[in-house]
């Protein structure tokens, strides 16, 4: 259609400007990360730089600071820098559609990194840890590391305004729900969850009801407030040996601190995610039970590798595909690793992900 021709010719003319303008510093791979407020993404920044260092391509990394508008603006910026591949981890999968579209309009290949850009056909590849699988891993860990029945289960989730929070929780619920139904676990802190305990596949709306009650907003302080009120209102029968589903390491630590300060809680199993340095220390010290380690290095290498393959003009290989609501996106999956005291050294230290010297209590 004529919009096509618009874009086309617009594109051409821009080649002109950017050639005479920024030929010397044109960028090959543009990278967009959701926020610099979480250490995980700050670390990614460096890893991406290292990953492309030994190729002769150049990269530029921008942060969206939790705003889809910044995200779009960043994409536009990178397009003006003349990138050919865009690696993007959306702040909000749906809202990122517009940004992805803008890029693919320019014939730029879009790689959705870690989080899937949904409901648009403007995504070419997806490099991921399966968010759903993360939730599953968390839920499974709780099941494997508790015994008996009638175990009190405390549920916590990320921000009710964050789609990923829904994915994590959905995954966890998919494995925990049967165990709740058969009485192995007793939900201690969410009336909504109790009502839905017989339903394995929840609608977005039903998930929303639960999250609305148990959201931490990804905020450790909010997590403490919630945990404290929950422990307060819970009777002795909901104490003792308990299981806690915490969405990520930041909230897991503060929830763990709160639970450990309750004399009636004799022991707790608590999940986490991201293998933050701070939480690894907690795991070593036995304050946090596990964290879902998503070896970001692998993910980074996969993503960058894929980008370089594309730049070299050949097609990258993929291991599966994801339906993003609009198209099936060919995907390259890295598996997630459950890390606890048993395998923390093997997975994180020996693999060189962290230095042993960064922690105390490791012999």
């Amino acid at each position, binding site marked *: 259609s004529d919009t096509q021709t618009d874009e086309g010719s617009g594109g051409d003319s821009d080649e002109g400007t950017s050639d005479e303008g920024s030929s010397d510093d044109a960028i090959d791979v543009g990278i967009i990360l959701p926020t610099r407020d979480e250490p995980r993404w700050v670390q990614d920044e460096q890893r991406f730089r290292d990953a492309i260092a030994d190729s002769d391509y150049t990269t530029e990394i921008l942060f969206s600071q939790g705003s889809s508008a910044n995200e779009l603006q960043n994409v536009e910026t990178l397009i003006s820098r003349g990138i050919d591949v865009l690696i993007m981890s959306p702040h909000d999968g749906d809202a990122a559609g517009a940004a992805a579209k803008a890029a693919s309009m320019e014939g730029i290949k879009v790689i959705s990194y870690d989080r899937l850009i949904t409901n648009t056909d403007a995504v070419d590849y997806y490099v991921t840890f399966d968010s759903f699988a993360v939730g599953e891993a968390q839920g499974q860990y709780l099941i494997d590391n508790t015994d008996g029945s009638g175990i009190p289960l405390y549920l916590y989730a990320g921000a009710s305004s964050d*789609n990923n929070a829904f994915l994590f929780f959905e995954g966890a619920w998919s494995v925990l729900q049967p165990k709740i139904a058969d009485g192995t676990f007793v939900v201690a802190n969410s009336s909504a969850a109790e009502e839905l305990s017989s339903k394995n596949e929840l609608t977005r709306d039903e998930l929303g009801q639960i999250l609305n009650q148990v959201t931490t907003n990804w905020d450790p302080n909010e997590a403490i407030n919630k945990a404290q009120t929950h422990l307060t209102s819970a009777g002795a029968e909901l104490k003792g040996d308990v299981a806690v589903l915490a969405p990520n390491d930041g909230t897991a630590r503060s929830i763990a601190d709160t639970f450990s300060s309750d004399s009636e809680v004799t022991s707790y199993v608590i999940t986490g995610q991201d293998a933050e340095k701070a939480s690894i220390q907690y795991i070593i010290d036995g304050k946090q039970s596990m964290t879902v380690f998503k070896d970001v290095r692998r993910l980074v290498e996969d993503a960058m590798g894929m980008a370089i393959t594309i730049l070299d003009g050949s097609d990258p290989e993929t291991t599966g595909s994801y339906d993003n609501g609009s198209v099936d996106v060919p995907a390259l999956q890295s598996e997630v690793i459950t890390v606890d005291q048993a395998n923390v050294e093997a997975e994180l230290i020996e693999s060189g992900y962290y230095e042993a010297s960064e922690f105390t209590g490791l012999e």
Partner: protein
Amino acid sequence: MNLLKETSHLIKDNIRDYGMYIALVAIMITFNVMTSGTFMSSRNISNLLDASGYIAVLAVGMTLVIVIRHIDLSVGYVAGFLGAIAAILLMQQGLSVWLVIPIILVLGIVIGLMNGFLIAQLGIPAFVASLAGMLIFRGALLQVTEGTGTIIVQDDIFNAIGNGYLPAIKYFYNRHVLTLIIGAVGVVLYIFSELKNRHDKSKYNFDVISMPIFLIKLVFVSAIIAYITWILAGYNGISWTLVIVLLVTMVYHFITNKTVLGRQVYAVGSNPEAAHLSGINVKNVTYMVMGSMSMLAALSGILYTSRLQSATTTAGMLFELDAIAAAYVGGVSSAGGVGKVTGAIIGAIVMASLTNGMNLLGVGISYQYMIRGGVLAGAVIFDVITRKRGK
């Protein structure tokens, strides 16, 4: 020789008004050099203007609110909330976009009048009243998006508001012809109005600036208009967002400068008591300004939702602060009675240019915050000092 004198005089007398423009030009040139041309490239300028659109309209309204010595912290989430409502009406109720847009704008006005009631009628300080509003609409936004999460908008007309461009008709050496035509028309209109203006003045024989200065001014401004449209024509031309922002600016510029209402706003701002004694209905003016503010918030919400082609659950977060910052960089004064609509727009563009330019240069986000804070402080200090010296 006295040509120079006159110029230097003009500049001295208007340093506060020109300061901002000079700053903007300085910023743009600096970035353009540092990015070796990318900053001023057709596409980047076009993106930059579009990116600042939803803040710019807020800044326009906020300027008037601050002129009458109030503030409105609720605009951010009002925009977010109404944006979500728009998405719901479009996608879930399946209403036509031509129905939805007026509905949303009217809702905005209603919300604004409620603020006006709290402030003008009950005499609640605007800061608190709107702080409460901020919390309430934040909750409301979460509430309406709870079931669905982000709401995708699949309505081409609606999405065009934030992403579409005026049709090109045809291309001429890769330049977007319609844009060039508009630019040409703009230049002609400008020159014509200036000439008429000068002619009237001399008819009433008031003193006018000397002929050479006048010509220089004509050429200079025309050149700028031409240059900008030329640049835009090099990419997709003029976006609908830009059209809307320009319309809002022109309408508000006209109202504030040419109409009785506009006069009353500034009168109330510069001395409420005197305004009342001069027969101006201060309450009504307050209602008007707060109403217009929330209407523009509604518009901002539409622009934002359309730009993202979806209503997100956190839309509107901190818009108010960006808008306030833009207004202050644009030279509004919380002492009341001082502040131009055009200033607000420039302010918004300045802030957007900073972000855009620093992104192009890959400046770390932490420095970006600090620099923006510094620029805001600098702008206000400059403003206060020049005003002091003026007195």
